[in-house]
């Protein structure tokens, strides 16, 4: 929605995001109050989840009886413009004068002419037939080839091989390149969705490349009561990144872990195989410097 207005001019229009029952009622109320309404939804049609329900909690009212009049009213209202299949990309400006960028997906049907008669849907010759997308074979990038093939070979005859394979891949590359996961799926027969769920379940795995040195600050109970919370902030400050993030030079990734079992040395951090115990805030710059210097 682009209005060529100057910044101090107030616009008598509103944009409602989401065309569910709440969004529809809001749009109607606004339109009744004389405000031009744009109603945005990312689905092909408005109606939201309620259109899939039979009864509603707690009164057992008929869902369709509640929403149908509103659907019709919105369809008729001259001041409501429906924008479906669209998502908001950015919002700028201030109250009274926003500028919103939307991205609209193609519908392949001219909305201005379609009456929604349903004839094309019923007469489509390939409707109700399974449409298989032909996926090409995934090939590994040359730099991954040797390692991945070796790992797959090592665990070929194992029962329940997925975890050991993923762990070895993680050791080799520090993260899971998408292509490698696709390749593993293709070779082992595990569906990619399954592999993806495992890959995102464990905290030791990452789908994004991580830094060369992973700073694991222990936030176990013993470390916490001995002041690990302050250390977390200081590390964040010193590296200029948040927890779970990686520095721009790909040197450090900062993570907080739950107990590395060195409670006698609390508070503790671990980087690779190096463990630093009885940490104090003043040790932080030296530790970071040590790894930075080793790099040069």
């Amino acid at each position, binding site marked *: 929605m682009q209005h060529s207005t100057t910044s101090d001019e107030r616009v008598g229009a509103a944009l409602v995001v989401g065309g569910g029952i709440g969004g529809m009622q809001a749009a109607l109320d606004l339109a009744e109050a004389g405000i031009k309404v744009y109603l945005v939804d990312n689905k092909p049609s408005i109606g939201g989840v309620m259109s899939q329900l039979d009864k509603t909690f707690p009164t057992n009212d008929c869902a369709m009886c509640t929403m149908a009049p509103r659907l019709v009213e919105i369809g008729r209202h001259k001041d409501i413009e429906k924008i479906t299949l669209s998502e908001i990309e950015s919002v700028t400006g201030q109250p009274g004068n926003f500028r919103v960028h939307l991205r609209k997906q193609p519908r392949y049907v001219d909305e201005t002419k379609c009456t929604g008669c349903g004839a094309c849907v019923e007469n489509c010759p390939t409707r109700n037939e399974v449409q298989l997308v032909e996926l090409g074979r995934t090939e590994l990038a040359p730099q991954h080839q040797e390692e991945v093939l070796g790992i797959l070979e090592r665990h070929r005859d194992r029962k329940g091989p997925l*975890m050991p394979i993923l762990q070895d891949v993680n050791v080799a590359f520090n993260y899971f390149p998408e292509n490698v996961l696709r390749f593993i799926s293709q070779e082992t027969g595990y569906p990619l969705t399954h592999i993806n769920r*495992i890959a995102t*379940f464990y905290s030791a795995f990452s789908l994004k490349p991580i830094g060369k040195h992973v700073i694991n600050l222990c936030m176990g*109970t*013993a470390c*916490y009561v001995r002041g690990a919370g302050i250390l977390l902030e200081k590390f964040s400050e010193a590296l200029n990144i948040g927890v779970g993030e990686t520095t721009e030079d790909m040197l450090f990734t900062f993570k907080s872990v*739950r*107990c590395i079992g060195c*409670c*006698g040395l609390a508070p503790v951090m671990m980087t690779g195989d190096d463990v630093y115990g009885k940490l104090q805030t003043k040790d932080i710059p030296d530790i970071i410097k040590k790894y930075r210097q080793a790099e040069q």
Partner: protein
Amino acid sequence: MAKKKRIEVMACAGTGCVSGGAFQIIDALEKELTAHGLIDEISIVPTGCNGFCGQGPLMVVIPDNIFYGWLTLDAIPHLVEEHFLKGRPVQKLMFTPPEEKEPFPLLSDIPFFRKQLLVVLRNKGIIDPEKIEDYVARDGYTALEKVLSSMPPDTVIGEISKSGLRGRGGAGFPTGTKWEIARKQEKTPRYLIANCDEGDPGAYMDRSVLESDPHSVIEGMSIAAYAIGSSDGFIYVRSEYPLAIERMKTALSQAREYGLLGSSILDSGFDFDIEIREGSGAFVCGEETSLIHSIEGDIPEPRQRPPFPAQSGLWGCPTVINNVETLANVPVIITRGSEWYSNIGTETSKGTKIFSLVGKINNTGLIEVPMGINLRDVVYEIGGGIPNGKEFKAVQTGGPSGGCIPASMLDSPIDYESLVEAGSMMGSGGMIVMDEDTCVVDVSKFFIQFTNDESCGKCVACRDGSEALLEVLDRIAGGEGREGDVEFLEELGAAVKDASMCGLGQTLPNPVLSTLNYFRDEYEAHVNEKRCPALVCRDMIQYYIDPDKCVGCLKCLKNCPTEAIMGELKYVHIIEQDKCSKCGQCLEECPPKISAVIKVTGNDMDSLEQLTEIVACAERKN
């Protein structure tokens, strides 16, 4: 066999000491001994965790049994010259309790060790965990031999049942019964899993057992496998324990070499082998059904029980999952008999239990004590009391599933039932001591944050319940607690307990409920008076410089990260509260003899703020 040497130096090489530089110290010691020509008379043995981790890096000199702690590289030449050359033990490196002058030279005199009873950790600090010969020399694998040659499986199960051994993972299910259920199942193969996914923050018993005596776990597993009729075993270890995994791998290959694993062990016709599986950082994997899913390569979410794993577990087959510590108990019971074992402990809780004693305590470390010992002995005798003369407040047991035990219950015994009665649980054995500077709201928030992060999200009560608990706790700690919040925590906690599917959810409200039970007044102070009695919750405290004490040394001023401190050299410094981020740096920087920086909370904040304005026309200090 090599000739016995004059002196043996048992240098601890557990993770704690290694991170303190134990290997460098061993190298230096070796170099120094070689330089003095002593290397033929004195041997250095890198052992597993000694237990007294707070003193690391440490070593024990045998046969004199002298204990040296807090070793540094600089101290080694002096030590070699004095002790090994001239025979004069070095007092400076011995253990001296705080507030006392005389050191304890002998290991056996140190109170930390005196009250302990070593059953599972019988070999800690005595053997080299990477040498199977050392384990065999301490009667290792005799239990396995006895079982294979003269005890039918049912007799083994009977013996374990009679001993009264209960699961050391936390819930305390009788081990013998579990084995019997699995043995009765008709389906084969049967599997055995040793659970070393020790996720409780503040606990490292299992890791220590694997690092200091891996063969005792292998032997225990072999006996268990023989009893239930299994030939495939797994050890599930967290990937955060690299040293434990390394030592276990070494131990497994040694056992195979000696024919103690593999086909027809000791020519008995019994086949058994063990595979290591690593976790990858998911707390819920310590739950047995999740762990099974993780090994299978499935999504590691728990499932509804029954059927219990002993009936239908790994790949749908009967599976016994025992904690590492439980399994390490097994060889001793077989060798010394169930009667001996059941004499230790209380009526319902037999044997010993390993605890990791950590937090605000003088002697941090790993301890093994008989069941039924009272908390006071653990905290004050073994633990040596609270550092810096602070007041004991509570001890937290059972990790995120457990609760707090207040000072009033210090004399109650430690066993499965008493702890549950107190609103906590045995758990895997973490024991975190808290002093007066620990805020119970803050600690509860910490645990709920943990369980909220680690909840796998499968069932609503745990996933959303922990979220809601956290929201309320955040509010209370942030100084925005409302009337009724405390009651709401109780109600919601009870609901989460009832409605969750696995152990994680069923126990996650415990830290909140138990602290509410014993420290309700603190919660109420947070909600009603916006005051944090322990001076921890940031939104309710202020840092303040006492003008009578401040000497204007600029130390705090220079180190303040937000430049919130005003002042000049020899002028009283003042903290500008609206700039202060409450990081506590100034408190750390202020020299101990001055200690002008203090924390205040509640009503004190307002009165001191006015005072600060008056002092703002800073008086000069001479």
